[in-house]
């Protein structure tokens, strides 16, 4: 008797579990009735279904990523660029999503990839590299979202964001960019060095100039001083010697004799009848 109750309880539990389904926060669910869609967009929580008649399929409700493969595009100046982008999307209308791409995220990504590349091609061909890289990024993003959204919503997809990751130059172009960068650096280096030489030359020349000026001024000042000295001396002599010029001549001559002749090593040939020898021969 107890066994029967247990069995009954067990059976009840099985039936119960088959007649409910849960919807998680990260899930979108479609309810089918014998293959026909009878419900979608269930709130998270527990919902009822008829066992064996209804079944459910679950899809991801979160934001998903379509990471596109890098692709070559032609810019307005007919240059190739390699563009790597990604799309953030989530399932919008889950019924459409199920019917168009079979609810398969991989399928959806393949379709999105094509849609994005078509839209990007026209956007990129309108712009030059400089605009792509620096100025027009957000404009490109906005117009890509606007252009892609209607196509995507036909697949039951809501576009959250389209981001261009990389805009790179192909290898052969990169090489020329590197060469240009090197040339630019070489120019900068030369400029630095010649500026250095210029400044150094200027400093040296200035130093030499200062030296010349300093020395010339010193020469001028010294000549002025010497002149003053000579003038004063001449003045002093003139005043004193002017008093008795005869005696001065005598006095000065005597000094000159002593200075000029009074040296050992001179030979003087003398006549003994000079004034000096007056008493030498006869003592009068």
């Amino acid at each position: 008797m107890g066994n029967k109750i247990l069995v009954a309880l067990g059976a009840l539990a099985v039936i119960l579990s088959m007649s409910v389904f849960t919807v998680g926060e990260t899930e979108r669910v479609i309810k089918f009735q014998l293959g026909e869609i009878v419900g979608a967009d269930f709130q998270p929580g527990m919902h009822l279904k008829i066992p064996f008649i209804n079944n459910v399929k679950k899809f991801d409700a979160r934001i998903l990523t379509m990471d596109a493969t890098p692709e070559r595009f032609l810019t307005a100046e007919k240059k190739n660029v390699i563009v790597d982008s990604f799309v953030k999307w989530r399932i919008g209308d889950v019924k459409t999503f199920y019917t168009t791409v079979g609810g398969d995220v991989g399928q959806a990504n393949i379709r999105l990839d094509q849609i994005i590349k078509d839209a990007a091609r026209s956007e990129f061909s309108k712009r030059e590299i400089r605009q792509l890289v620096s100025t027009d990024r957000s404009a490109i993003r906005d117009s890509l979202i606007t252009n892609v959204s209607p196509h995507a919503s036909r697949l039951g997809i809501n576009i959250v964001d389209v981001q261009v990751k990389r805009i790179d130059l192909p290898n052969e172009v990169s090489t020329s960019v590197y060469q240009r960068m090197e040339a630019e650096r070489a120019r900068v280096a030369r400029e630095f060095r010649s500026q250095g030489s210029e400044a150094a030359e200027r400093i040296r020349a200035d130093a030499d100039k200062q030296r010349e000026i300093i020395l010339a001024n010193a020469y001028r000042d010294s000549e002025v001083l010497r002149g003053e000295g000579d003038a004063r001396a001449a003045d002093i002599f003139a005043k004193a010697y002017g008093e008795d010029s005869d005696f001065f001549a005598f006095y000065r001559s005597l000094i000159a004799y002593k200075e000029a002749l009074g040296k050992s090593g001179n030979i003087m040939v003398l006549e003994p009848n000079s004034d000096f020898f007056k008493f030498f021969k006869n003592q009068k």
Partner: protein
Amino acid sequence: MSWNEPGGDKKDPWSGRNEKDNPPDLDEVIRSLQDKLGGIFGGGKRGDSSNGPSMQSIGFLAAGALVLWGLSGFYTVDEGTRGIVTRFGAYVATTQPGLNWHIPAPIEQVQVINVEQQRFIEVGYRSGGGQAMGSVPKEAMMLTKDENIVDVRLAVQYQVKDAKDYAFNVLDPASTLKQVTESVQRGVIGRSDMDFVLTEGRSEIVAAIKTEIQSVMDAYKTGILITSVNLQDAQPPEQVQGSFEDAIKAREDKQRLINEAEAYSNDVVPKARGAASRIVQESEAYKEKVIAQANGDVSRFSQLLAEYKKAPAVTKQRMYIEAMEQVLGKSNNVLVDVKSGGSIMYLPLDKLVNKVAEDAVSAPVPTHEPVVAPAPQAKEIRNDIRASSRERDVRGR
């Protein structure tokens, strides 16, 4: 305690999966339980084994299972984490650290998310567990506004600021963050010139990248908070490193050339000033000397003149004789009395001169000027000065 495991459905009487439980087994379990518990339920030890478990034992079993099932709802949330509770998949609550209870599985479930752990992603390189940084050129190379290529490596640190958003809104938040970082950094670098990126713009660029990443992550409702963006490296590409280094060297060369010139200037100008000072001082000395000598000479002369005027003839005579005495006393004299010899006289002057030279002690040559060693810079000019002034100097006494 496999009993307590949430989701351990095999032990769960409500999951409906234990249909295969055999009644005899169940009996044995009940009997052993009754033996141990000593008939708490009042039933005799010998249950009607032939008819399967009694109502009492079923009730007992159910109650026990219910208690165990209820106990399995206890869980602890560690410090720095949050529990996300869902009931049949729908979000109910976010629980704080501590001991919590939820209605056990399969009704409610808990997902624990760490909100304080600092996670990070690397863009443009992989640190690879303490080894040297491996560059990832595909991520690191990007174009600048002036169409140069730079090599940028970023590390982004983040943590979870909203556990609910983090758990429910985005598939793989970490790789989403990485994609967004790649996109945003290229946007920011693409708006800047290369020199700005490589030199003074670093902090500005990092700040801009951080703000933009955060706003995109918020738009996606990822529940992620960017705590810091570190610019690990911003360099010119390897292919042009050499020329960049040379440019840096050139900048240093420029400074070096200037410093050398400054050194020359600092050497030359003071020396010139020194030389100038010497020239001026010397001429001042000359001036003073000349004046002093003049005064001296004049004073001597004036005093003598005063005496001379008292007795001119005697003084003159005396001065003359004394001077002659000095002059003739020092030199070698040859007296020739021309009138006293009619015949021609031979004077062997050359022999006399030679003899005098042998006898003579080389006398020092008096000079009026001190011999100075002029400073090298001043040499030429001083020579010029000397050339003209020496003549003047010589007429001293």
